[in-house]
């Protein structure tokens, strides 16, 4: 078991945790840093200050109470649907791949892909907003065509690690995949 620190594409530190349960079962967990209290303060204060300015001119107290509601609901939605705490990839040779991402609120989304559906795991390049980035993805086999690819499942979609981290995960995934084919 080891814990290494890398960067994601916007330069924020992330940590990669590789656990080797056995020779054909490995788990990779990429954790992103927790929400900083400073950032929460900045967002809350800016919403409240804006609400106070509106209140100053309109003298309507509903503005202030709605500002409080907006910040509370916004924070809840953010930690429940947006903020991913860690993403993990569990590769079990001859069985399949399990991809799960757990949100800051504790919600967890898990998908499992059987080995028979998996064609390969590759690192690919894509245009993402105003950048061109590398990402790791699983190629799914097309059942009708033995050499075709039916679709692609992107891994570590919200943490977006940089190439050096992806290469590390890619190499150990390939070790397992090559043994079971």
């Amino acid at each position: 078991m080891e814990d290494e620190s890398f960067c994601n594409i916007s330069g924020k530190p992330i940590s990669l945790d590789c656990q080797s349960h056995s020779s054909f079962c490995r788990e990779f967990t990429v954790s992103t840093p927790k929400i900083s209290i400073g950032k929460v303060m900045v967002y809350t204060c800016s919403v409240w200050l804006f609400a106070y300015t509106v209140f100053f001119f309109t003298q309507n107290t509903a503005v202030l109470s709605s500002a409080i509601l907006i910040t509370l609901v916004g924070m809840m939605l953010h930690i429940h649907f947006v903020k991913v705490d860690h993403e993990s990839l569990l590769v079990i040779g001859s069985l399949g791949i399990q991809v799960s991402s757990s949100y800051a609120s504790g919600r967890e989304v898990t998908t499992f892909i059987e080995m028979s559906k998996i064609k390969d795991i590759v690192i690919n390049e894509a245009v993402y907003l105003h950048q061109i980035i590398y990402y790791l993805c699983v190629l799914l086999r097309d059942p009708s065509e033995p050499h075709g690819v039916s679709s692609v499942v992107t891994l570590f979609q919200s943490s977006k690690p940089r190439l050096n981290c992806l290469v590390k995960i890619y190499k150990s995934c390939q070790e397992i995949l090559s043994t079971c084919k």
Partner: protein
Amino acid sequence: MGQRKKVGAVKTSSSENDTGEASKVSPKHNICMVSDFFYPNMGGVESHIYQLSQCLIEKGHKVVIATHAYGRRKGVRYLTNGLKVYYLPLQVMYNQSTATTCFHSLPLLRCVFVRERITVVHAHSSFSAMAHDALFHAKTMGLNTVFTDHSLFGFADVSSVLTNKLLTVSLCDTNHIVCVSYTSKENTVLRAALNPEIVSVIPNAVDPTDFTPDPSQRPTDRITIVVISRLVYRKGIDLLGGIIPELCLKHPDLHFLIGGEGPKRIVLEEVREKYQLHDRVRLLGALEHKDVRGVLVQGHIFLNTSLTEAFCMAIVEGASCGLQVVSTRVGGIPEVLPEDLITLCEPTVSSLCKGLEKVIAKQRSGSFPSPNSTHARVKNLYTWRNVAERTEKVYDRVAGEEVLPLEKRLWRLRSHCGPVAGSIFAFVAVLDFLFLLLLQWLVPDRHMDFAVDATGPNGLWVKKRQKSEPGC
């Protein structure tokens, strides 16, 4: 500017690692070709970029191509021999050319230039807004720039006055410009008010193995004239419409074979209808490049009626297939082929008819050299290897030149492009520089991953090929 120093440092360290002597003699460049026009769009510029890139890869340079997204084809693709193509999602405005706002393409192009460690940016075609944008940004980022002009322009009408001004602005601080013929060079130098010393002439090329003659395909009982061009005004299709009835009346064994599609097709169809020539004038419609040879070898005479042409590839292809070429004397065409392989006429119906009659009479008497001997002569005139060698020299020269720093660039813009346009574009250049600083603050270079080289000195694709070659 710091960007450039870093790139230089990376380059020298990589060339030190190289043990080959050849790489020390001529430095290897990281070249980015930028144009709006690339495959899947078909045309002369597209095949020029592709063939040139392939030959440069063969010579050991790293080449990537940046173009805009075509429909669902976006992102990063690899072509033969690891030629990497970036299809960037930029909005297409008109005729497959992107909109230019001078700024919106900077983030993506910067990303391409930084991650591929580009040293030379080579833009193609003056119709391409993306090429001009890339030149502008590359200069802001302190990269060396080369521009290839593929077309001729007029001076009189409003649209060419505007394009010429844009070209002046875009080229006044570009390191080197390449034109496809001497006529094109003259035209570009005049249009963009350039110093002729920084303009080189490198012609286009054809792949001679694609265009071999096959006399057995020719019908013996008649004479066929082949025309292959887009059916547009520029290609002189109205002239063709005048020639067809006149010659068909005189020579009952004369047939026309016309390949290509365009708005002027209606002219030819009208002529065919009016003079009842359905069996003698065949319109083949749009042809794919691979089918062109099959059409060419069926003919005896190749006719080109262009009204303006920088360098006519079609006549070289025709001659390579062993056909007798008749063409208008416009633009760079007189430079293209030796005098005895081509008959030049003025761009009028009467002159073209006279020229064609002369050639038909000669063809009947059989005094022309055989198609194979013509092919042998044309074969070595224009090869892509030669083009790549000459382009390489341009890159070597450009790599040694300094890129103008901002204050000199502003001064150059103001002194070369007139007080109004110069000042406007100097202001735009300053804004571009500030935008670049903002981007460098938002997404610093050190947070971008360098791309894995497919081609070039450390190219993985090339190594794989070299490894497999001894085994074959």
